[in-house]
């Protein structure tokens, strides 16, 4: 079920009440049951796939602790490969078949398309990576194997972060299922506030901007440069608010139950470089790739050529993780290219800035760096969002052509939507700045209870009145 649905609004308080009312020994089973119900609200049969991957890695974890030597490596490889095969079948088989058929077509061969369309189980990429991190950590000796199947299954299936992360490490999450969690008013209210902020991002910002983005990117040739540029800018905020909004709701939900999930976003669009952007965007995924792919390949402690290769491979695979389409691969490689170029030109850029008096802590230099990083990110988002590479090339090459301020609207996004969309983005930025500078928390602390409740109620009403309530999924669900 979706976080922004009436079903979840009913499910969460019931699950929470049952959790806190249950005796401690029953709580993990209750969470597992709730997580199964949550997952089965999508496509019930696919829970069997989830249990297959859970069982594989649970058993692997147990045996990795018991056996020694070469067999441990073999078991690790078997576990990783079998988990990845499940992911590969459901996510990449059709893509692979289509790519082979296209390649064959280039050489004049017509291959029969015999594969049926396979529906990707929701959240497969996320819980697969979470399982893999468990197995690797057990192998490395940094995590004891979980002997209780119910606890391990709940670690993989914990409903707040089941379908779109954050991708948790076992060291952070697994032990929390053995701790006693009591109802704490402050944690619950803090969690509720986090959920409200996540819903604002999703419903008021992301889903409203999606109206425009979907129209323009659905048929980019029908729109002028201004519309293409606006859609690109809107998509940057849409994907940020959609995904970070989901993470906020996931973190808030877990907080209500007394669990701590990792932060997944740290205002990434304020980054001074693409490298910093990737330390602030989808932190759980980028750290996963760093720890389990980039560093094992040698990271940066290798000759320059190998370092560049490591970066490109990591980002290429990261792109592929996002979806079975060449646009995602190109997007990943483009980000890798940004990082490489940024790393290679760092000294040159420092000298260039210094030559015009823009030292590292000057506001102007920071503004230029933030702006240029945002621009580069937006250009990459074009490839990410476009339905194919041809569309991506078209958008990039027509961003500045045919601007017509008389033609801004689209079929679904009439002009009356524009002030609401822009206002929502401004409210988002102001809210983030206030929170980052602790202006908002300290201001709220000075207001009495009636005043705070009035503000919170007004915020809820704002989300309700300005939110877009349609059956829309979160973008990252498709990954």
């Amino acid at each position, binding site marked *: 079920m979706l976080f922004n649905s009436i079903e979840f609004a009913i499910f969460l308080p019931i699950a929470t009440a049952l959790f*806190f009312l249950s005796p401690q020994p029953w709580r993990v089973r209750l969470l597992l049951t709730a997580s199964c119900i949550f997952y089965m609200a999508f496509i019930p049969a696919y829970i069997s796939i989830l249990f297959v991957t859970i069982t594989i890695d649970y058993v692997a974890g147990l045996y990795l602790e018991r056996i020694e030597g070469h067999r441990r490596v073999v078991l690790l490889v078997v576990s990783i490969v079998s988990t990845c095969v499940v992911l590969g079948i459901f996510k990449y088989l059709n893509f692979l078949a289509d790519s082979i058929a296209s390649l064959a077509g280039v050489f004049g061969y017509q291959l029969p398309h015999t594969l049926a369309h396979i529906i990707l189980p929701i959240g497969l990429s996320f819980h697969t990576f979470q399982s893999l991190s468990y197995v690797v950590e057990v192998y490395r000796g940094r995590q004891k194997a979980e002997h209780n199947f119910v606890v391990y299954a709940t670690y993989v299936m914990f409903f707040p972060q089941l379908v779109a992360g954050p991708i948790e490490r076992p060291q952070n999450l697994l032990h929390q299922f053995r701790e*006693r969690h*009591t*109802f*704490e*008013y*402050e944690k*619950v*209210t803090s969690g*509720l*506030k986090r959920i409200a902020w996540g819903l604002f991002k999703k419903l008021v910002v992301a889903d409203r901007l999606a*109206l425009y983005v979907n129209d323009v990117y659905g048929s980019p040739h*029908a729109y002028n440069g201004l519309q293409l540029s606006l859609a690109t800018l809107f998509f940057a905020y849409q994907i940020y608010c959609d995904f970070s909004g989901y993470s906020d709701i996931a973190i808030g939900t877990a907080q209500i139950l007394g669990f701590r999930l990792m932060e997944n976003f740290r205002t990434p669009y304020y980054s001074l470089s693409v490298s910093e952007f990737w330390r602030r965007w989808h932190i759980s995924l980028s750290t996963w790739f760093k720890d389990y792919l980039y560093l094992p390949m040698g990271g940066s402690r290798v000759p320059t050529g190998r370092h560049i290769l490591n970066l490109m491979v990591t980002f290429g695979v990261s792109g592929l993780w996002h979806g079975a389409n060449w646009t995602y691969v190109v997007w990943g490689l483009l980000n890798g290219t940004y990082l490489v170029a940024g790393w290679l030109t760092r000294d040159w850029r420092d000298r260039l800035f210094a030559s015009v008096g823009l030292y590292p802590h000057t506001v102007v230099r920071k503004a230029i760096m933030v702006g240029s990083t945002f621009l580069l990110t937006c250009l990459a988002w074009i490839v990410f969002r476009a339905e194919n590479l041809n569309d991506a090339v078209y958008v990039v090459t027509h961003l500045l052509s045919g601007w017509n301020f008389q033609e801004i609207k689209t079929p*679904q996004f*009439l002009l*009356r*939507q524009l002030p*609401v969309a822009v206002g929502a983005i401004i409210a988002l930025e102001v809210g983030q700045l206030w929170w980052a500078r602790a202006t908002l928390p300290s201001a*709220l*602390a000075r207001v009495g*209870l009636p005043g*705070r*409740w009035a503000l*919170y*109620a007004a915020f*809820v*009403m704002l989300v*309700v*009145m300005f*939110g*877009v*309530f*349609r059956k829309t999924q979160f973008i990252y669900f498709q990954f």
Partner: protein
Amino acid sequence: MGVSSPDSTAPFLAGELDATAEGEDASREGLRTVEGVMRIACFFGMTAVLALVASVIITTGLRHVKTGQFGVSNRIMEGAVNADIVITGSSRAVSHYDSRLIQAATGHRTFNLGRNGSQTDMQIAVLKAYLRHNRKPTILMHNLDAFAFVATREVYNPVQYVPYLYDEELYQALRRINPSIWKSRYLPLYGYVVDEMSFAWLTGLGGFFGWSPRETFFEGYNPRPGTWTQDFQQFKAANPGGVAWPVESEAVALVEGLINVCQQNGIRLIFVYSPEYKLMQQLTKNRADIFGRFYNLAERRHVPFWDYSEWRYAANTDYFTNSQHLNSRGAEVFSADVAKRVIEYLATRSGGDRRIDTPSEFDFWQY
């Protein structure tokens, strides 16, 4: 919700405690939990009341709006129309029949009950609501569409009906199409925010304080001032082989149902197929079948049928915004034509049985 909570010392962390102290701690913790839950419940209860009050304000406001689609609906539901000639149909009715022009030409009060995005079932529901609150008209001109025999799958722009869901027949008609409409009736604000992109709630707030938006509906007529758009080109590109509109038995029965409503109420019904862009007519693969059904039905039920398929401007995009809708210029010309036919019909009381495909003097009149 930001007040720091009391200590939440769990008994098992407190080291060696005697049973009484443990029991007291657990009891205090239980009370704090209850207090916390009550506070949260109070907050959500307060927010629910706020939503209910907002919903009442918006609904009241929308029922006081004097202009636009809500203005039209309010006049209908308040019994302030009482027209002699009413027009029903879909968006083609709304934008083709200039009620003011027809009224001026015929001398009979005229009102357009057309609804954008509606099919026959909603059109009947709106007509019945009209008849419950207003004097029955002498003539009802029902605009037919090529897709008149397609059953409704969803309610278009449901917010336009939300302030009037207290009307049981209207509500039941909507429920037959969309069983979830009960949420709009019983859940505060639901109908004003879910699947609603027009910010109708802002209009409601304004209406509550006596404000109404700029008028765009004139005796129910909503003109389309624009020029020819790319809609038809895009449609042709997406459907190069044309389109065949389904003929569904339940929709056929609804058209018969409309005839029954009129005949039971002693209203003279006239079917009108208002102008449609010529090239679109050629792209409708089963047009002959559909129109055969129109003619058979009209003949069998003794309903005049004015078919404007051969309207002299049907091939001229200067009179259309897209293949289905006339622009205001086209509507003006068409409405004048219809007005003249109504005058003749009223004079002869049988002259409307002629079909326009057998040339009549109307074809040669200059407007």
